[in-house]
């Protein structure tokens, strides 16, 4: 449980960080809160020769809400996400999700950027970002580009981010309506057995105006459930439509057996968790 040896770098700005990354190439990794990376290094599953710490890049630490858009810097910690009243007003689902990540110690260190860039299907923020229809901003040697969260995840630990790019921020529209992040886990500090992020808004007629559903740790990437979301918009929210939406979403999942239980159990639990999340979000809509 001791990492291999490495060189430590602490650039002060994003351009400096990118320059370092370009120079050091494959042998370098950026480190944010370190709470996914350092455990992997201690197990020597990752042995980067250079760590580029983003802590000193002040421009990556921010939360802003303006013009109907929320913008969060990559180095914002989960604790900061929880603490921000402004963010809570704009997107209360973020606090609800963050509070279900690990424990306070981890949340003081773990960052939004690290959580979404890591590509670990167990992480909660990726599905949240898909549910919020977030856009990730990536900066690299060739400049800046954006990728939708819903298109970012390719496979476990594989994302659309190029090795030489840094994820600088996530942007998403201010939320309206009801929300819920439901997570079943074995204990504090555990990744999800099954988790669901749901945003629903009610129309004037009592119907479902918008719906967005995403799932955590039920496949090798987060799952955005487009059909299920559309089903609720088309049919309104009722026991029957929830059941159909859940069935549709369950058609997309592909859980694996692990210590949390066999896939069969996870399928069942996932359906219950999603059903509860929809009901909860609708009750708050």
């Amino acid at each position: 449980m001791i990492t291999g040896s490495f060189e430590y770098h602490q650039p002060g700005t994003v351009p400096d960080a990118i320059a370092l990354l370009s120079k050091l190439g494959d042998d370098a990794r950026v480190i944010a809160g370190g709470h996914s990376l350092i455990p992997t290094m201690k197990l020597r599953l990752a042995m980067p020769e250079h760590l580029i710490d983003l802590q000193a890049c002040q421009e990556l630490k921010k939360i802003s809400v303006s013009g109907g858009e929320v913008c969060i810097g990559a180095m914002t910690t989960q604790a900061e996400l929880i603490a921000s009243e402004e963010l809570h007003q704009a997107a209360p689902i973020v606090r609800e999700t963050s509070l279900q990540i690990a424990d306070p110690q981890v949340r003081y260190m773990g960052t939004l950027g690290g959580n979404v860039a890591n590509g670990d299907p167990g992480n909660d923020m990726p599905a949240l970002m898909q549910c919020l229809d977030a856009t990730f901003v990536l900066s690299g040697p060739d400049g800046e580009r954006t990728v939708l969260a819903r298109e970012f995840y390719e496979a476990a630990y594989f994302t659309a981010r190029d090795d030489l790019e840094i994820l600088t921020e996530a942007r998403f529209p201010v939320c309206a309506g009801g929300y819920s992040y439901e997570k079943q886990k074995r204990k504090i500090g555990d990744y999800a057995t099954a988790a669901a992020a749901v945003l629903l808004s009610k129309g004037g007629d009592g119907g479902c105006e918008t719906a967005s559903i995403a799932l955590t740790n039920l496949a090798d990437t987060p799952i955005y459930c487009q059909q299920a979301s559309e089903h609720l918009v088309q049919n309104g929210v009722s026991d029957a439509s929830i059941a159909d939406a859940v069935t549709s979403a369950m058609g997309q999942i592909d859980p694996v057996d692990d210590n949390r239980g066999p896939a069969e159990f996870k399928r069942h639990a996932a359906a219950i968790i999603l059903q509860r999340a929809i009901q909860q979000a609708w009750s708050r809509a």
Partner: protein
Amino acid sequence: MSATAESVQERRAALKGLGTSRKRVEDARFTQGKGNYVDDIKLPDMLFGDFVRSQHAHARVKSIDTSAAIELPGVIAVLTAKDLEPLSLHWMPTLAGDKQMVLADGKVLFQGQEVAFVVAEDRYIAADAVDLVKVEYEELPVLVDPFKAELPDAPILREDIADEKEGAHGARRHPNHIFTWEQGDKAGTEAVIGEADVVAEEMVYYHRTHPCPMETCGSVASMDKVNGKLTLWGTFQAPHVVRTVASLLSGIAEHNIRVVSPDIGGGFGNKVGVYPGYVCSIVASIVTGQPVKWVEDRMENLSATAFARDYWMQGKIAATKEGKILGLWCHTTADHGAFDACADPTKYPAGFMSICTGSYDIPTAYLAVDGIYTNKAPGGVAYRCSFRVTEAAYFIERMIEVLAIKLNMDAAELRAKNFIRKDQFPYQSALGWEYDSGDYHTAWDKALDAVGYKQLRAEQAQQVEDFKAGKTRKLMGVGLCHFTEIVGAGPVKNCDILGMGMFDSCEIRIHPTGSALARLGTISQGQGHATTFAQILASEIGISADDITIEEGDTDTAPYGLGTYGSRSTPVAGAATAMAGRKIRAKAQMIAAYLLEVHDNDLEWEVDRFVVKGAPERFKTMKEIAYASYNQAIPGVEPGLEAVSYYDPPNMTYPFGAYICVMDIDVDTGEAGVRQFYALDDCGTRINPMIIEGQVHGGLTEALAIAMGQEIAYDELGNVKTGTLMDFFIPTSWETPNYQTDYTETPSPHHPIGAKGVGESPNVGGVPAFSNAVNDAFRAFGLTHTHMPHDHWRIWQTANKLGLHN
């Protein structure tokens, strides 16, 4: 005129003796980060050791190439079995009469087994060097299922003893078989079972788990080549035994070895045995002439250092139609892993499993235990219990429930019908124990009243109706447990560890100014000995507990003792403390008589002084007597005031308790929540109620962990699946329910102060209470028994199999 009642009371209170909720004197340093643990020890020129471990569960070691590791700057040595062989230290004896490889000798038998020991200038270099050692393995078929150990195609694990038909505990019928241990009346029990009205049968599995103390195991060995003395600091629950073993193994004379257990961050049985790391650090220090530290990490601790339980207990229990139990039969298949390294008294290869008749008056019983080798880590230690007592308690408390189901009877009533009655103590059990004292019915009634048992059952019945009617998806379970422990090992005539009788000791010195130092053969790992032993002594010798220092753990100063595990400290060393205190008092009485110019018999003891009978104004306080003992020539009395007592207990003590757990279960997700937990403990005389409560809270939380999720699981290739705290369940405050504690007080008749020990009761009684609650929740739907751990998916699976998801 005697001293006023109030002043006697005040003086008694000032002693902070027995029955006082005195604050723990240890906590000032622990809560301020000022503890001194093994890993805090830093010596000049100290080197660090780290292990190359096997990734295979069963493989032949074809070759070990250490050359690249040796070449790494900062690496001092790499030890393999070949280097230890000339010293005969490549294998070592286990506490259970087996032997164990220190470093892989030709093959490896479990994942995580120690293969080579790298010694380097710092732990980072050592870790890098571990990666550079190249080991070539030839994989062998793996045996993980003890029930397949004796099949014709089973791989033979222990080739070193494959042909030995006799082991340390009698005949071996197969190379993978370790022993058969039988107790009780086989024919009689089988006859009773053959003829009884009702027989309930069940296989009760107590899964493999792990003590997982917060501090992992470690040692620092320092061989002084000039004076020939070896000092060994380590995480030892039994430092004196370690010294003796170290002397026998190394050939260093025992007076040249000093073993020190500094602060220990929890033991729970994990730190009783001797591990390869200790041996390697000693050898490395002898070889290099420099101090060598070895501290394992969490994954090493979980996957290679002693596990607990792994008992498959097949049971049959016979009763009349009315529910009077007639006989109990148990056959246990005990998975011991690759070496038999259980830490039990020598004559008890299955510990005190024969306490499995529990709190009940069962006239006939039979127990057989078969120990089996598998490709898993060795251990089988007593995780916060006296040797295998938690297995026994779990077994009988599950069997009672299974019988209640068969009889269609309330399980609380069935228990009450079969408890050993108060007037039957001392009680001879069918499996050979003499229970010292108990009053089970009183405790049981108090517990049932406290939780409102009848209403709980009514509420539960209603909830079952509601569930069936589709009004709720939750069920509730009421988990009952009445446990009896056997602790305080034990009488030297039948209890020893490696030949050392299981007495314990206390040595007291009273200083001239009336304060005291007491040293014991035990060692606290968080139990609060410095607090409670001072209280025992305060009540015996009339010196305030605040003026008494308790020291343990340094074999150069403490008297020989067998250490702390199996709830033995209070029953054995606590008794020694009281007895040594009485010797002090006897001498003090002679001194007081001389000072007061009366006959010894004319004095009586009153709290903190000797008073002349009938003349209460004439007295000498212990403080005055202490001073006199050092500054006056008293005819016929040696100067000074010291005493030593080595206490050989006449019997074990038998603490008991009544626990009730109310649990709510989400049938769809398998999540379970404890709504209420009531714990009544009877540990005899209560030394410090606050510490008892703390012990009960901690032990219950461990029990919760074990019952609800904590396990060491292996896959079919012998890979450890639960080697980190992500998967090995340790509850945080979030998962920990609220506990309601209560007590009755039935002193032990043979213990000098009547105390029985409490540290392990909550683990022993808690596990069945939690597990019974889960099982009970599904009783109305036809469930008889389901195995622990009751994590979400297993509870879900139980519900699923019962058709509750349709």
